[in-house]
């Protein structure tokens, strides 16, 4: 017969969590009920188990009462399992002799009947008591962290995260899908509330990124594949062909004036379509890297159609004046192909940003119908000195009698376009009130027009924001409280003739007003990127119901994701302004540095292993593993698991037809005893 087992001495602790648990669960009754269960040496209730005294209590009890298993009933294990494992270990036990019961998130917070909630807590506690008896001492594996970091997205978030890491001596890959870094911020003219020039504060950082010895900058590139796990990610990056050899291009831009197209005639995306560019172009003067791009869709040296590999077909029909202009630099290469790079990194920071709400989705505001209805981002370019009009605010439609472009005399800015509306996006985009006022100020400065802001609520929480609002009020900008009903060109009075009329219920005055203006600006909200779903899958993140990437904890882990080693910064996590974005980017960089500087991660020892004697070699498990962690030993005709590759999902365990695979922490006996326990109540 087997040696007598060590007597089970379980310590059970039920946490009041102040009133969070105790108000709905009779903690004393739970402790008294658990006390009677076999193997329980002591059962206590305590006000705050996670507090220092709570943890010390566990440690003392382990020593004084010779406890060999610990169960704590409190909040979610996702929150405090680590804490209590630590306390268990500090008490001298293996940390995996601990199990946690969630009676807050899964019980006291979601139920309304104290008796029922108490019964549930008892049943959940009993399940844990039965389960913990089967627990085994396990060892935490330490996995080394690759010190390099991938930053995805080169907006201000990505730039700041990359710079922070690079300045700390970490090697960073910064991958940006556009030809230049800078993101949305590069398009802005000024930033609120300080009105510093966006370019003045951003472009130095951009060029620093471009020249930083620790940063490998890959623009015009996509992350196409991510494999591995925290500390050891293998990432595939597609460097899209820009038909320019980056190392040879000096940024002289001689090719651009020498293009066979004498005039720019293709839509300039950077300028929101307000300007034109040539087939060979640089997105904006301060673009980083200072490397031009050739657009094969419109360049005459390419023809319609694609090669079998998807690359455009070189026609060689063009005179290639650009190549002549490039001369000895020989930077232009029409045969360039997309290139796949594979890199190894330990951490990934996702800063993929946002897209602005498509104003056309609110037809009542006439965007796309009336030419003088603009989006806020168009105005950013319009007021920008390096924008398509050189900073002159001129209307798309309408000329002065002398034929010169017309400047607006009155402008209406409609807030919350696409935001705070069940029909479109429910959320507040957070930045629109402030940028609307900034644009009002800038437009007034540029045109001296009469400015009207149509708002639902003014939201100006932020340092210096309310002050900025006051400043705008003093400047004589009109603020009309009310959601605009429509923008129309249907004039009812001579004054309205030739104007756009904004119809709005002024909810402060209690009247419906018609305000004729020359220009309408739609303060479009922020939305998740169109491909956020794909990006989320690529990096194994979660999305909220609204499509923004989900942080691990809204308060305590705002830049972490549910995947270790993948962090978030900037608007991909939700709308935020530049200060918050930069703060978050710094936080994400710091989180990555925590892992890098520690040098290793501790891995949950919930991996699976195959019972070698018992495995019949049926191979049923092998195709089930997405990580190819299960291998077949041809010599011995048995399967085995490469523990380093196993991520602990337990799928093979659930499928092994002879139950010859065991998952640590989730053994069959542990789950069965839990089932028994949760059903033990009357």
């Amino acid at each position, binding site marked *: 017969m087997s040696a007598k087992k060590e007597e089970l001495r379980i310590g059970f602790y039920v946490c009041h969590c102040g009133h969070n648990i105790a108000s709905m669960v009779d903690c004393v009754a739970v402790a008294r009920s658990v006390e009677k269960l076999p193997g329980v040496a002591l059962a206590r209730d305590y006000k705050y188990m996670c507090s220092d005294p709570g943890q010390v209590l566990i440690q003392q009890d382990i020593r004084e009462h010779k406890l060999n298993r610990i169960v704590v009933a409190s909040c979610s294990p996702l929150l405090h399992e680590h804490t209590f494992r630590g306390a268990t270990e500090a008490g001298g036990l293996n940390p995996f002799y601990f199990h946690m019961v969630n009676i*807050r998130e899964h*019980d006291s917070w*979601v139920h309304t009947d104290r008796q029922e909630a108490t019964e549930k807590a008892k049943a959940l506690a009993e399940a844990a008591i039965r389960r913990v008896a089967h627990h085994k001492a396990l060892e935490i594996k330490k996995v080394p962290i690759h010190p390099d970091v991938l930053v995805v997205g080169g907006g201000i978030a990505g730039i700041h995260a990359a710079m922070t890491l690079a300045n700390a001596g970490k090697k960073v890959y910064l991958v940006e899908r556009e030809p230049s870094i800078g993101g949305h911020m590069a398009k802005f003219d000024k930033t609120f509330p300080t009105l510093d020039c966006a370019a003045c504060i951003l472009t130095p950082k951009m060029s620093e990124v471009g020249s930083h010895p620790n940063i490998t900058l890959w623009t015009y590139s996509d992350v196409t594949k991510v494999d591995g796990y925290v500390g050891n990610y293998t990432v595939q990056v597609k460097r899209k062909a820009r038909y320019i050899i980056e190392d040879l291009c000096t940024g002289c831009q001689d090719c651009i004036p020498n293009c066979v197209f004498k005039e720019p005639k293709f839509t300039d995306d950077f300028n929101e379509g307000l300007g034109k560019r040539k087939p060979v172009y640089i997105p904006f003067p301060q673009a980083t890297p200072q490397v031009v791009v050739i657009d094969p869709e419109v360049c005459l040296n390419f023809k319609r159609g694609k090669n079998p590999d998807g690359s455009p077909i070189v026609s060689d029909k063009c005179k290639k004046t650009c190549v002549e202009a490039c001369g000895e630099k020989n930077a232009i290469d029409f045969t360039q192909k997309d290139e796949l790079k594979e890199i190894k990194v330990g951490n990934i920071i996702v800063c993929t940003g946002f897209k602005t709400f498509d104003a056309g989705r609110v037809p009542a505001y006439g965007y796309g119908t009336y030419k003088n209805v603009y989006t806020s981002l168009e105005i950013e370019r319009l007021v920008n000195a390096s924008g398509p009009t050189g900073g002159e605010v001129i209307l798309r439609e309408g000329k002065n009698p002398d034929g010169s472009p017309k400047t607006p005399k009155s402008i209406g800015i409609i807030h919350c376009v696409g935001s705070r509306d069940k029909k479109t996006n429910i959320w507040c985009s957070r930045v629109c009130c402030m940028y609307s006022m900034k644009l009002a100020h800038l437009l007034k400065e540029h045109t001296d027009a009469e400015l009207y802001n149509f708002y639902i609520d003014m939201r100006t929480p932020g340092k210096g924001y309310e002050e900025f609002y006051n400043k705008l009020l003093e400047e004589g900008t009109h603020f009309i409280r009310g959601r605009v009903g429509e923008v129309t060109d249907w004039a009812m009075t001579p004054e309205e003739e030739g104007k756009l009329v904004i119809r709005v219920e002024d909810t402060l005055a209690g009247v419906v007003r018609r305000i004729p203006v020359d220009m309408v600006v739609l303060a479009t909200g922020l939305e998740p990127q169109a491909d956020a779903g794909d990006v989320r*899958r690529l990096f194994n993140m*979660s999305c909220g*119901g609204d499509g923004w990437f989900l942080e691990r904890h809204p308060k305590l882990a705002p830049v972490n994701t*549910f995947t270790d080693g993948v962090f978030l910064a900037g608007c991909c996590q939700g709308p935020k302004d530049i200060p918050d974005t930069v703060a978050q980017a710094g936080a994400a960089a710091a989180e990555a540095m925590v892992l890098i500087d520690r040098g290793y991660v501790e891995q949950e020892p919930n991996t699976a292993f195959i019972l070698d004697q018992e495995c019949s070699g049926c191979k049923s498990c092998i195709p089930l593993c997405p990580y190819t962690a299960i291998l077949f030993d041809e010599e011995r005709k048995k399967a085995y698991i490469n523990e380093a590759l196993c991520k602990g999902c337990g799928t093979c365990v659930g499928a092994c037809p002879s139950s010859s695979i065991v998952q640590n922490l*989730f053994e069959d006996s542990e789950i069965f005893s839990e*089932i028994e326990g949760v059903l033990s109540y009357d």
Partner: protein
Amino acid sequence: MTKPWTPRIVAFFCNWCTYTAADLAGVSRLKYASNVRVIRLMCSGRVDPQFILDALARGADGVLIGGCHPGDCHYVEGNYKMLRRFELLKRMLVDFGIEPQRVRLEWISAAEGEKVKTVINEMTQQLQALGPLGMPQKFTAWDQELEHLAQAVQARDAAAGPCPTHAAPSPTPEVVHV
């Protein structure tokens, strides 16, 4: 005093999506029926059909499995493996005379706290309407027919007097348990 019957639901939630969603439901202070008892697994792919049958056999009136949405599995495809098992298990349970509503598979992402609430409330209602499955009570009832014989034998033996036990025992080889 007997409490009115309410259904017992054993739930197996994957750590990354549905368990987190249930946490979110808690953080959001949503209110739902207290009939569910959640067992946390790392992935819905870990859900062994034995767990479901065992839960039913031990007195669960329904079993709820929660995993990540298709394409969203933290472990790439564990949820598909559960889906495939579920499809055949559901059919098999019907052959066992168990109503298909008693076993439910739901994809609930970490953001869908609201769905946790809806699904649990809905399932509780459905099971309340179905009534208890009551396997432990069934096992007892089924085995009543054994009790009858035991009683009959006891009665007969009592009438016949004790069985001879004084006779020489048979030569027993030395027993060594290995």
